[in-house]
């Protein structure tokens, strides 16, 4: 009896499921829903609120892709992934897109069977330590116990730094970020290390009094975060890439969710191509020509997304720094829409 129900359930569930590798684009289109792998809960990047509504800069990328594909940013199903199962989930076709503050590296790009989209957030690894320890810079931390995430680039960078500078750190690695934080909060370790943006987010949201903790000035690594798709999934990668570029380009062109309808009437040929008034840019990608219009309308441009999730409007209050547009001294630079 139960088996029969279970079988029926299997079919229902399998029907919701997924993906032809290499044909993700068609599979997503046919399903009418994007399955996006995100963080288990990192405020500012990807985290659900009490009602289970997701937000964050990675989540915005998922929404942008959904808006480009379906004209509706809400057609996303989020799958929360840990550090350990993110790549295997993508490889196995569980998710269509991995947008989980993942550093692009050569090894991951090649041996893990995945391909990275352009960078959507530039980061670097830093150190968080309690103010009362009186630590001013990294060399003061010799011999400290450091908590980090297992299987992350942070863990490897820490080992490298330790080796070069003979810091005799004791590294303790945990599976999930909340385990790392609780180990730090209970004093199991002296220092918490991960990417600086994450540290900012954790300091603001996970510490009882944020002012009791300080992020050290040193940055010991480059951490370009990028979304990833399966290897050899070219058409799908194109869509993800240009959805992100649309957000960046929109910011550069001064198009925001507020003024997008107005800007579409502009005579500027660049804007016309971006917002789908002419140029058939969407057709080339296999989606509606107004895909960028929908993204900006429903998700906003890159700057809006940043401000909402990480900037002064959020609890995290992060400097934009490297994440400014290239015109403002940052690194974000979209390829032209033509």
């Amino acid at each position: 009896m139960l088996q029969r129900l279970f079988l029926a359930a299997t079919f229902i569930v399998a029907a919701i499921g997924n993906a032809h590798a290499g044909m993700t684009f068609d599979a997503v289109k046919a399903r009418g829903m994007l399955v996006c792998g995100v963080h288990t809960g990192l405020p500012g990047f990807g985290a659900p609120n009490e009602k289970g509504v997701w937000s964050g800069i990675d989540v915005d990328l998922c929404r942008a892709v959904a808006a480009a594909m379906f004209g509706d940013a809400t057609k996303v199903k989020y799958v929360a992934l840990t550090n350990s199962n993110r790549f295997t989930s993508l490889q196995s076709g569980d998710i269509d897109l991995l947008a989980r503050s993942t550093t692009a590296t050569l090894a991951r790009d090649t041996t893990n069977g995945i391909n990275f989209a352009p960078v959507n957030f530039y980061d670097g690894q830093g150190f968080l330590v309690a103010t009362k320890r009186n630590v001013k810079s990294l060399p003061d931390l010799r011999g400290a116990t450091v908590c980090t995430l297992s299987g992350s680039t942070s863990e490897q960078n820490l080992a490298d730094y330790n080796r070069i500078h003979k810091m005799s750190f004791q590294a303790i690695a945990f599976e999930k970020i909340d385990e790392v934080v609780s180990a730090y909060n209970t004093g199991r370790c002296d220092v918490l290390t991960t990417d600086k943006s994450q540290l900012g987010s954790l300091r603001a949201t996970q510490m009882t009094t944020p002012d009791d903790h300080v992020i050290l000035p040193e940055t010991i690594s480059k951490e370009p975060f990028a979304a990833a798709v399966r290897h050899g999934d070219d058409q799908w990668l194109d869509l993800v890439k240009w959805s992100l570029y649309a957000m960046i380009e929109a910011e550069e062109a001064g198009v925001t969710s507020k003024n997008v309808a107005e800007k579409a009437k502009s005579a500027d040929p660049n804007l016309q191509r971006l917002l789908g008034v002419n140029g058939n840019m969407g057709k080339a990608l296999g989606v509606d020509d107004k895909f960028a219009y929908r993204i900006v309308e429903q998700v906003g441009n890159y700057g809006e997304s940043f401000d909402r999730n990480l900037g002064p409007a959020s609890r995290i209050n992060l400097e934009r720094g490297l994440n400014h547009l290239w015109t403002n001294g940052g690194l974000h630079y979209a390829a032209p829409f033509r």
Partner: protein
Amino acid sequence: MTLRATDRPSGVPWYNDEKTRGVLYQVVLLAVVLFVGWWLVSNTLRNLEQRQISTGFGFLWREAGFAIAEQRIRFEPTDSYARALIVGLLNTLEVSAIGIVLATLLGTVVGVARLSTNWLIARLATVYVEVVRNIPLLLQLFFWYAFITQSLPGVREALHPLPGVFLSNRGLAVPVPEFNEGQAWALVGGAIGIAASIFLARWARKRQDATGQPFPTIFAALGLIIVFSFIGWLIGGAHSALSIPEKSGFGFSGGAELSPEFAALLIGLTVYTAAFIAEIVRGGVLAVAYGQTEAAMALGLKSGLVMRLILLPQALRVIVPPMTSQYLNLFKNSTLAIAIGFRDFVSVDDTVMNQTGQAIECVALIMAVYLTVSLLISSFMNWYNNKVALRGSTR
């Protein structure tokens, strides 16, 4: 309906013949197993190829690039993944071995306590067993870990119950003798002591068989081992230097440290498994007919001797097989280490898996390693069981 007979009566069609059917069933089963196996393997290979995931165990020789906090053999991030996995395996074996010994001791005490004539003690033991058995081990591990890290003071305020001993949320730091070549002599002495004890035990057994006079073998053996080790230590130059932990910077330097992760896992495994072992011990003792106790008491043996000479040897025969499966459970349960950040084999393997993306190889490694060690443990216990059973039957 077919008669179960080797010869097929005439008139029964071939497909109703029992032998033919047996062969048929087996052929069908093997075909199904082979087909499913082939189907899975070919799917997997196709998927791997399509996604350009490399296969094979070659990755094991690549540089690991991460550090392991707890190591019994030297491990640097420049070492290979294979060495990292060995470090993890040694950690697993260490915690399991100590856990098995402690759980056996605690379990036996509790099991005997449940049979105590003292009402209060028996009740307390029962409460312990019922509570511990009915709460998931993972929850208990979380509790112990949180208890250790959250209720013990930080390094600077570390408890200092004995000179050189520090208890803090970084774990327990204790002094250890500084090892040098002279102390190898102490080990040699210890080995001689053990050898001497074995001879002594043989002699004592023979004498008891011949004359009936018992000999306090256990105390004598302990004495022999201690004395010989001490002599060895003196010959080696009587080094008495201790490495004493001291607060320095962020932690302790010197001495030996027991990490909170290790401690929580060890306590959790011991406490949990002991509850099951207690039930086995109780069952084993109860299984020995009460007449045996009465007979022993009638012979004038003291109750301690009744337990040691009459009850336990007989109970062992009942106890050993289920005990084996508890030991195996403890060993397999040690994999829960991953949830509290202790670097056991699975935890290291998990890190390797997500650094290299070699999921299939890594899961296969876990299975192979645990299967091998499980088989080793159970064959050892079978050997022991046969020994116990044999002695019982020849007497």
